């Protein structure tokens, strides 16, 4: 039984994220490769970058990326090379091109909108004096005081 389990274990062991044999000897190139691979998606995984992923496809992509860097590609060229082959789905950080600018602008636009509405509201609050008197009935006021007392 135990031998069987051990055998299964050896068969079942996954490849890990970046393996020692992938690491480039030039630390500067390796650092660039690590940074770039954090922004590239492992295509067969759910929401993992190739830097983190254990999948063999991710390993292939890591090696491919390093080959491009060793061949002298700039960061942009190496990424473009991979995007050409795997589509923009591979980018974890969608560039603000075409319809994607909506995604990038959504936050700032919403802040402007919400800020504007808030400002209008604040001006309204600041300009309506005389509403301070509570239009509560005596009964309600008594109950409210009762609750707020302690």
């Amino acid at each position, binding site marked *: 039984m*135990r031998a069987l*389990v*051990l055998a*299964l*274990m050896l068969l*079942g*062991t*996954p*490849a*890990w*994220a*970046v*393996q*020692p*044999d992938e*690491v480039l000897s030039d630390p500067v190139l390796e650092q660039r490769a690590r940074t770039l691979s*954090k*922004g590239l*998606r492992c295509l067969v995984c*759910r*929401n*993992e*970058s190739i830097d*983190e992923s254990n999948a063999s496809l991710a390993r292939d992509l890591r090696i491919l990326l390093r080959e491009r860097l060793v061949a002298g590609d700039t960061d942009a060229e190496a990424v473009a090379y991979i995007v050409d082959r795997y*589509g*923009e*789905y591979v*980018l*974890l*950080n*969608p560039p603000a091109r*075409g*319809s*994607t600018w909506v*995604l990038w602008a*959504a*936050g700032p636009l*919403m*802040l402007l909108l*919400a*800020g504007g509405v*808030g400002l209008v509201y*604040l*001006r309204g*609050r*600041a300009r*309506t*004096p005389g*509403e*301070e008197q*509570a239009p*509560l009935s005596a009964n*309600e006021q008594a*109950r*409210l005081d*009762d*609750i*707020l*007392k*302690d």
Partner: protein
Amino acid sequence: MARHRAPPYGRRMITELGHFALILAFGVAIVQMVVPLVGAHKRWPGWMAVAEPAAGAQFALTLLAFGALMWAFVSSDFSLRLVVLNSHSMKPLLYKISGTWGNHEGSMLLWVLIVALFGAMAAWFGGNLPPTLRARVLSVQAAIGVAFFAFILFTSNPFLRLATPPFDGQDLNPLLQDPGLAFHPPFLYLGYVGLSMTFSFAVAALIEGRIDAAWGRWVRPWTLAAWIFLTIGIALGSWWAYYELGWGGFWFWDPVENASFMPWLLAAALLHSAVVVEKRESLKSWTILLAILAFGFSLIGTFIVRSGLLTSVHAFANDPERGVFILMIMAFFMGGALVLFAARARALEAKGVFSMVSRESALLVNNVLLAVACFVVFIGTMWPLLAEMFFDRKLSVGPPFFNAAFTPFMVMLGLILPIGSAMPWKRAVITRALKPLRYVFVLAIAIGALAYAIQSGRSLLGPLGLFLGAWIVMGTIVDLWGRTGRGENRLRRLGRMPRADWGKMVAHAGLGVTMAGVAGLTAWSMDDIRAVPLGGSYDVGRYTVQLDDVKRSQGPNYVSTTGSVTLLHDGAEIAQLRPEKRFYPVAQMPTTEAAIDYNLLRDVYVVIGDEQAGGGWVVRTYIKPLTNWIWIGCALMALGGLLSLSDRRYRVAAGAAKTKQVPAQ
């Protein structure tokens, strides 16, 4: 192995009783939904009074059903389909228990159990609510229960039987067999479902057509409790990911994580706006809208996890039919509540008048920032779907987007926090509010600059995080100290400050600590990957890692490969680490158990990998600065919430027992 026999008759009876109790609870919930609502409308006290015993009965029956399911898991009753799919007779007891909710059906049962629990608590502690409001709150809460009971009974029944029980089960996903993760889902559900209580209060108030300071006070404890549970649940999940997934990531911006983060952001906004309703009777309709949306995002979270619409590492047991059902529940509650809101919101006249510069407006800015941050997370999570539907583009939105698009709002929030919290209500003079903070600001800038000077890179993230952390922590302390007035006995007065003030200070400081931790970890972590021969050693920064030995051994339901690693700092031994790799044969899955040397300033994180063909083992080493600040900050936030919750003014039953007590003041 083949010791299995058919479960005795009595044990099977318990399962049947659980199933029956669940159906009965569904019936009770329907009664609780209809009768008090009609009663409140017609002012019939007898009908309204049905709500309280019904809420108790609904909770007791659901508890019985949940207990029966847990019993089936603990006793390994493999005549239940769910137990076969998610358990194994050799699994440790803790994970047999947590296995009850480690699957879709069981977790939905836990979900309704908590809905019923909150309803029962509102019934028991809600003695001081006006009778009509109380009846309506319990009725709305029961409606939520009805929807989810129907969902469970018709699409995800945990009590389904197998005609021929197998000898053993298929085991729980090994990743879930961990103490941290065992308690992550219950806390999250307590949080999600806690927001159902706020939702019920909001809808009941809309039906009543009035909201006053007292409403703000009643709703706050529920929001606070939900927010505390969400904080703990999210922190547990994040901590688990950190030590379990094997490379020390703590947040992945995964759709399901986002699904828990969005309600947290809105609950935080709601906490602050409910203060304005309570103290100043303003921001009423906005607060109601937030209460509706916060629960809406909880439902969206459920929908995302269960439907499989967005794939994620968390997705379990997803099924389009269930997705459609949850979508219908969501459409009904959100649509209904928002229509009611549109019809009634105008009636919610604001009363308080305040100037542009005041605590009210600062809290409004807080709400705008939190809500917009939530919106950014929402659109980022949904964008891959939207882009494919409308623009025919298949793209990914991952951590780099969220880090860039979300962080600025948190930075702004951190910048205004100490200023806003130092402002008085109604009308503030900005220079007076800033005056006590100027030294704090200078000191915080100095800390950030120091960090910039001693770090090796030129990244601004780390220094910015430390600056914000110092600014918030010191600012909030100075603020509390400033409230003790002048002259003698300030320390004594500090001790006598209301718990809510202490809670505010502690929770805000927690946010600052977490921000500093996140920034420090992200900016300054180091890693090293290499193949190490047995007995070999290597340096990472000022640390030396030495691989002494690697052993294989057998665990209860897994086999383990454990390394013995000695960690040295400047040549002196500081720790013995045991990084472990497990393999679960039944589920055919490996897991990593990283060995971590914890420290307040840094973690040293060691992971053992595969044996290499040429001898030796792959070892990964990470130096992760300030990591523990993230969890300490979360713990402080939760503690601050608890302090606030324990303030006698905000007690759930505040005012209820008043007739029996002599007022303290």
